[in-house]
């Protein structure tokens, strides 16, 4: 009889055979006609633009980390909601403490500006509006053009 870990091992072996078997069978059976479009990496039907190994903005990681924390919070809330009726006020207070600690972290992140996305600032040329002065400078040029 297999032990519990033995079952896992058998599952892993069968899984590996299943994947490898499919790959090998299709490699033997399929026709080989490669062309550039076929060899390009699949990006949900879009044409790939450049290399995938580019430098990502570090803010993605910050947001991902913050998301992870609140994701875990929600995971903790589900079992809590299940036993809430049996424990009553005590459970409520415990979860309140947990949430308050997380909220402090959230406030910290917010105040420190880690939730603000750094927008790229395109340089918009400044227009200095000085009508009379402009007219004075433009007029001789216009005259020189017409002449």
């Amino acid at each position, binding site marked *: 009889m297999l032990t519990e870990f033995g079952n896992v091992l058998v599952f892993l072996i069968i899984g590996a055979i299943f994947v490898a078997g499919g790959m090998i069978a299709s490699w033997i059976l399929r026709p080989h006609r490669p062309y550039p479009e076929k060899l390009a990496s699949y990006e949900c039907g879009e044409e790939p633009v450049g290399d995938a190994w580019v430098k990502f903005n570090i803010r993605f990681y910050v947001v991902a980390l913050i998301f992870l924390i609140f994701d875990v919070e929600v995971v903790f809330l589900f079992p809590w909601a299940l036993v809430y009726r049996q424990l009553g006020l005590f459970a409520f207070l415990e979860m309140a403490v947990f949430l308050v600690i997380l909220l402090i*972290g959230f*406030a910290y992140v917010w105040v420190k500006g880690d939730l603000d996305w750094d927008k790229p600032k395109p340089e918009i040329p400044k227009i200095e509006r000085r009508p009379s002065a402009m007219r004075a400078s433009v007029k001789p040029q216009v005259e020189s053009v017409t002449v």
Partner: protein
Amino acid sequence: MVEQTLHSLSQFLPETTLTITFCISILAGLILRNKPKVIPVISFAGILLATVFAVRQMGSSQAVFSGMIVVDPFAVFFKLLVGSTAVIIFLFSIYSQEVQSTLKRLVEYSSLLVAMTLGMFLMAGAVNLLMMVLAIELTSLSSYILAGYTKEAPDSSEASLKYIIYGALSTGLMLYGISILFGLTGATDVYAINRSLAATSVNSVALLIAVLLIIAGFGYKISAVPFHFWTPDVYEGAPITITAFLSVASKAAGFAMLIRFFKISFIDFNLLAAHAGGVWGLLQGFEWNKILAILSVLTMTLGNLVAVWQNNLKRLLAYSSIAHAGYMLMGVVVLNDKGLAAVLVYFMVYLFMNLGAFYVVMLVANKVGSEDIDSYKGLGYRSPFISVAMVVFFISLAGLPPTAGFIGKLFLFAALLDARWVWLAVVGALNSVVSLYYYVRVVRNMFLRDPEGSTEPIRFSFPQMAILLLLLVPTLLFGLFYSPIVELANASVLMFGVR
């Protein structure tokens, strides 16, 4: 279940205090954005209060939070050690230029110190392997950030990055070892592991591999060779206050966990009951203490031999702290309560002498702007009091009488010879001789060399001297009047569930 949790909470006061202090520090930092100097005061008060609560736990012995954490004399001892180190580090920070020149980040500095202290408090009491990993991670994550606190300095960022990479690797190895041990025994609780090992025999090769992997995690925390590679770079790059904290408190918490894990997991309770004097028998004939003996020899020899070549005092003290981890491992190898008490005595002594040495380095670096051994030339004439204090700390670190360091070494070697580990004692003694050389090299620069450049006397303010005296007096006093620390150590070897 509610009553049980409430009872556990009442035994969890020091940790709760630290958690609340951490939250208040962060909130206060957000609200009082224009007065960052208030925050360290709040954190300092919180740590002081937590240490007082830890003192009040003395003598109690029970498991709380369904056997995740224990409150016993052994844990309380290490909590006191870590708490008092944190208090002293806050005093250091008042005069640290590196810390005071970055006022804007003072909130993060002091609140992360509180978080790190909390992690170490948990490390001292954790009896479940998962709780141990969590506590290590809490400590490590805070220390990664603090090591890179002066992020304008490139070596500080380098220190932080190296620390995080080594830390992640060693935690990974440790978790892998824990998973193997769980597979062998079906438990993560050290008491349950002990029961399982006592009842059934397991594959000894698998057990050896699991324990070696777990040692990698502990060895990283106490910076034992061959897991020490991060130590010199991190100690050199981090602000001196953090270096001092890591070298004492982090090491102490690591030792607390290592000792508790090995003692409880592999001790033979039947043999313990049969023999008087707290001699431990080992389950399954698994002699893990031989692994630690090899580790100890490697650690102290490499630490001392490499320290000889260092010219930066912070690096020198880093290697010296590696060597001291080696000495302290000797006390764990002998497998009895006498050896354990010797380790605890050594830690109390090490706290004062090592923090003292780092404090002098910090004061001198503030004035001279360098941690090079050459910049200490003629310091004995420029600032006699500081230099004499440094000599006392170094003599104590080398283990010469009449300082406290001598008492620490004396008890260690006595325990070793008692348990017939003569060869290890000889190696330890030879290492002490080597260590004398590099400590005296600094002393020679201070007193037997003429000052280079400026010969102006260097003056320090009265509070700075008072902090120095706070460390200097115990270093001298415990060398002559050591019965209180020995009694405290003997009372603190008691662990929950043993005997």
